[in-house]
């Protein structure tokens, strides 16, 4: 059993990733086929709709993570001077800024960033999730500054080079096949002096223990074989790749999830989850 565990590897306490993964896998099969929704998928879709935006539902860890990643993006942009001084401390600190969120899913991170005033584009390769995101944003008539789009970063970069003040890829990098290509495209979308924000999972023994052994084989709250440990990426590798594309890392923080209280906190240790902010030259 453990050899299988070693081969498959999967990190991580919360259920969200397994779910995200399921959705990502499902999306590859549906997005390429017809846009007409059949009833089986509708049911699946309905299930998703009820859980994705439920703060205490299956995505609860992504909701509670907002308490750290919104300040990471907001204060990061303030600290590098991207946010105009007069907007600091106001209810719309990110106004006038163009932000791209890659792998936006149902929009859990996109909507708060939009509420802070940014003009935000959320892209994802899952048609269900993009629909779900649009659906939810439409409920709030004041959210007119979000643009959701069903496309990959590879496609998006072709028409949107050097367009954005910030690119955010949160809990996405660990699901990407070619991380170099992915990061290169993200960086290309950035204006000079633009910021890239990443949160992802480290490639360590600890994240293997906490993830595959603990989460998938002991507590069983992540289906076995969900994650591919080989896709995880260590912070210094991410940093080096970004440097290759002329991005200097300003901050790397560790994140710690307490699954009993469903709350995240910043820690110095980056061996499981980490967040990174880099600025393009």
């Amino acid at each position, binding site marked *: 059993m453990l050899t299988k565990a070693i081969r498959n590897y999967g990190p991580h306490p919360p259920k969200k990733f397994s779910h995200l993964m399921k959705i990502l896998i499902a999306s590859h099969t549906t997005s390429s086929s017809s846009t007409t929704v059949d009833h089986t998928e509708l049911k699946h879709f309905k299930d998703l709709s009820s859980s994705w935006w439920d703060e205490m539902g299956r995505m609860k860890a992504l909701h509670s993570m907002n*308490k750290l990643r*919104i300040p990471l993006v907001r204060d990061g942009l303030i600290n590098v001077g991207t946010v105009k001084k007069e907007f600091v401390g106001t209810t719309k600190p990110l106004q006038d800024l163009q932000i791209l969120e890659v792998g936006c899913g149902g929009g859990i991170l996109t909507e708060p960033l939009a509420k*802070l005033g940014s003009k935000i584009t959320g892209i994802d390769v899952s048609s269900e999730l993009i629909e779900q995101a649009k659906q939810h944003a439409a409920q709030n008539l004041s959210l007119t500054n979000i643009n959701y789009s069903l496309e990959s970063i590879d496609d998006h970069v072709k028409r949107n080079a050097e367009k954005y003040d910030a690119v955010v890829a949160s809990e996405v990098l660990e699901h990407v096949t070619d991380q170099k290509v992915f990061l290169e495209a993200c960086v290309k979308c950035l204006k000079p002096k633009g910021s890239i924000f990443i949160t992802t999972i480290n490639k360590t023994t600890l994240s293997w223990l906490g993830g595959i052994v603990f989460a998938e084989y002991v507590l069983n709250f992540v289906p076995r074989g969900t994650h591919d440990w080989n896709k995880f990426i260590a912070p210094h590798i991410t940093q080096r790749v970004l440097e290759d594309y002329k991005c200097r890392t300003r901050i790397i923080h560790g994140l710690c999830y307490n699954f009993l209280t469903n709350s995240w906190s910043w820690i110095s240790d980056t061996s499981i989850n980490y967040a990174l902010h880099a600025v393009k030259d």
Partner: protein
Amino acid sequence: MSFNIMFLRKTVNVRNTLNRLPFNLNTNSILKYSINSSNHYDVVIAGGGMVGTTLACTLGKNTKFSDRRILLLESGKKFKWQLKEQYSNRVSALNPSTYNLLDRVGAWKHITDVRYGSVKRMQVWDALSDAMITFNHDELSEMVAYIVENDVLLAAVGKELEQLQNVTTINEAKIKEYQLPKKHEDTSTINMEDGTTYTCNVLLGCDGANSLVRKTMGVHYVSWNYNQKGIVATVKLSEDTENVVAWQRFLPTGPVALLPLTNKLSSLVWSTTTEHAKTLLGLSEEQFVDALNEAIWKTHQQNSMVTEAMKTFNKCLDFIQLPSSAVRQLPPSISGVEPGSRAAFPLGFGHASNYITKGVALVGDAAHRVHPLAGQGVNLGFGDVNTLDRILGEAIYSGSSLGSLNYLKQYESERQQHNVPTMLAIDGLHKLYNTEFTPVVILRSLGLQFTHALNPLKKAIIQHAAQ
């Protein structure tokens, strides 16, 4: 350009999907979420008492709420305050943290313009032994508490509130029922008796110990009555003194406290058994004053064991040069009571095990009710206001919805970490002093004396009570 086109496509897309998909999403619920609707508010505060009004004013002045809409619903008539020569019998002892809050929202200057009493020292002593404790800052340099009439406070906060554009106050609001957000909803609905309906992103229940908001939430609520009544009155001192000490004496029937108003007047809070309270209210003014002086001054027969234990303990304290109870200030004697200022109210304990559910939070007495013996009740409520103001501000600055559990949960845990120990300590004190059982009297006397002797411990208590 491409952005615009995509945007257009998005709008069309959404319309189509809305018609196509069997979501729990009908046109009504969309309208409900619309912030343009004039009956939708970001925040609805139920209850315009001291805590509710101060909460409305604090949020209204928070820059993060500058483009938000706040509604304050109060069942009473519009409060018209006029200064009367006679002091009101309903006063609050405000701790430094409450002072800071009122100062921050600009209400304190209005209180200064009217009047308040200052407490630079507190003396608490036991009727059944010589044990006593005092609380004060070094050299009486700082205030321990401020004694403010409730009406003066409400008028001061109301004056600031009136100037706020983002807060609407509705008086004589008769609330029929609340509909709290269900699983897939984000807003609460408030149905009024007159058929009006309001919706909000977060509902803040400041509607007192019998909170309808709390009952609608269905949270577990622990409560009991102390079978005691609190008698309040404004009393005259027999001599003009620099009246800056708050006095409290623990009698077997309950504590009696005098809070300074002016050099001639103090406010009385006398907790006693329900039967005794009835008797006290029935007495003539002269008889009442006699009864009160007896309560403050009468030497109760002390158990010889208690006296002996205290003597020995005081000798030990003297020996190691810690302050004993040898030196004490004498309380004032009372010469009269302001006509018509006597009143009684029931005393009870209440604790909501949860202060929040999705989109709803309880504030002040709606969440917690304590015995007045430490004068902490309203300060706990103002502490809630302070914390909620900060956390809701953070929620907005993080683009979160105001009803988000992730932020409300932080409010709940921060406040319960402060309130619950305070409440247990107050209830514990009540139980500790509500007995004449000799071993308990000895232990509490030694405990009080020991606490009095240890300055760091006393400072820690002052600091907790000041938060």
